[in-house]
């Protein structure tokens, strides 16, 4: 067991633009952002400020135009294309707003995809994903197809898929946006309790101030920069102030 690195995520001066010439859009304008292991970190800000772009860059799905990104001490942009995919497969879990489950696979099979991608035998992969789905309260829905699941159930399957291979960093983009309040609360509850471990970190992009109280830190973003970072709001008055 190697020592826990000091930082799970370290972004320094990250810039990103799309297009060139007249079509050039500068989305990230020098982002400095860190997440410590063991933290559940929120990324909030107005629509279009670059939140999704930032986590895509952190997750290695997009390249930066300038600056550096380190995950657990590893500068992922220095890895070869192939190794970056492998790094992502081992170390990252994803939760999307639209769940993005494969409609032709059952809940258990969907949750097992990262293990299958890593080359595990189907039986072993399914055993592990089933055990996890039981913990997430889906023992009765394991063989159901996504179309037969409610939004909350689908998001829990997606959560299982993000957790099943025990990645060190989980990134979630608006995981509760498509859910009603109670279901969103329940999903965040599960995320907070199962994903946050001393050597792991979670980044959640959200507009949903009803769930801010789950955060250890909240990074506020505006126009391509992190403007400030605050700690967990002490009470619900924080939510009220931001709504």
């Amino acid at each position, binding site marked *: 067991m190697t020592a826990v690195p000091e930082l799970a995520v370290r972004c320094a001066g990250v810039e990103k633009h799309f297009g060139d010439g007249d079509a050039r859009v500068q989305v990230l304008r020098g982002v400095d952002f860190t997440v410590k292991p063991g933290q559940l970190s929120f990324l909030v800000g107005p629509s279009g400020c670059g939140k999704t772009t930032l986590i895509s860059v952190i997750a290695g*799905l997009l390249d930066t135009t300038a600056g550096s990104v380190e995950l657990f001490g590893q500068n992922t942009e220095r890895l070869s294309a192939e190794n970056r995919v492998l790094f*992502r497969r081992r170390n990252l879990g994803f939760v999307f707003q639209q769940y*993005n489950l494969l*409609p032709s696979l059952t809940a258990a099979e969907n949750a097992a995809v990262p293990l299958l*991608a890593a080359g595990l035998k189907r039986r072993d992969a399914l055993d592990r994903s089933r055990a996890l789905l039981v913990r997430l309260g889906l023992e009765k829905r394991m063989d159901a197809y996504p179309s037969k699941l409610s939004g909350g159930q689908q998001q829990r399957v997606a959560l299982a898929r993000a957790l099943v291979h025990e990645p060190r960093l989980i990134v979630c983009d608006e995981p509760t946006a498509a859910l009603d309040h109670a279901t969103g609360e329940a999903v965040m509850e599960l995320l907070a309790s199962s994903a946050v471990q001393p050597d792991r970190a979670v980044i959640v992009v959200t507009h949903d101030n009803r769930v801010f109280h789950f955060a250890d830190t909240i990074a506020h973003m505006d126009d391509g920069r992190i403007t400030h970072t605050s700690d967990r709001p002490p009470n619900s008055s924080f939510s009220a102030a931001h709504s």
Partner: protein
Amino acid sequence: MNFVALRMLTADRAKYLGLIFAIAFSTFLLQNQTSIFAGIMARTGSQIADVVDADVWVMDPATKYFEETKALKDTDLLRVRGVPGVDYAVRLFKGQPVARTPAGNFSAAIVLGIDDATLVGAPRKMLLGTWERLREPNSIVIDQAGYLLLFPGEPLQLDRTVEMNDHLVRIVGITDASAPFASFPIIHARYTEAVNFLGRERSQMAYVLARPVAGVTPEELTRRIQDATGLKARTTSEFRWDCVQYYLEHTGIPVNFGITIGIALVIGLVVSGQTFYLFTIENLKQFGALKAIGVTNHRLVGMILLQALTAGFVGYALGTGLAATFFEVFSLKIATRGIVLLWQSAVGVAVLMFLVVIAASLLSIRKVLVLEPATVFRG
């Protein structure tokens, strides 16, 4: 991940069936048309192939294919016999008189007059009667299809009479001679009788059939005969190919089949390619999610190829089954006898359809390879 790929492929039953159907349809059409084409082309030399007693066909240099012959001179037979290496050489008459039945049915017929003494040139398989009876005066042997053409719906029966050019002749045997190109009856008679079935022509020695002595190949013998006599000599298989070649060059048959085959290919490629491509486009989001999760490009290409090859294989199997059934049914019909699903066609189409699905999947593969995994975050 293989089962994931297969599940994705079959998840939408209707699209999957559409894809399979497109491939099956093209497979069926291609096998069907190429086999029928080859079958029809092979028929142009049916009567050549039916002669098993001789390996070398000698003819006037002006004769290009079996049907249309320029007569040889009687002395040509002796000249061929004089070529060293000839074991035996016999004459073959070919004429096309009209045959009539007492009931009034009639049809142009292909009459082959074979050597009186040896009966060389007769097809082997008799369905009814014997070759020996051909020695009786005014006797002929007719093929089954020709019999049924002249006596429709009647059972095969010997000793019925047919009239050709005022000659009343008796059917003493029924053969299953290979189907000719045009569906005329094939009638065999002794040479000396056959010449009388045609009014005006005194002699119509169309071919001399020869066989080499042991130790001389048919190819060698054709060369010797050509050198010695100035006549044209061909081995059985060379002459069959000459006929095929002639029909290829002088009829619209290859163009017609070529068009159908081309259409089948294009439809196969376009429809299955398009269906498969659309299928990938619809699943792009899923591929994007897999990419984000960390499925390598290498693996994704494998998944798409597996999907394409599976659809291709199932479609091909279905189409081949259909084609086999088609030919099984039609080979029982007298008019289409001998036209079968050629293994060469089955193999050729397999290769073609393989290339079609690979080509169809290339666009899909490209699309998935350039796909930005970051798009999965977008709604």
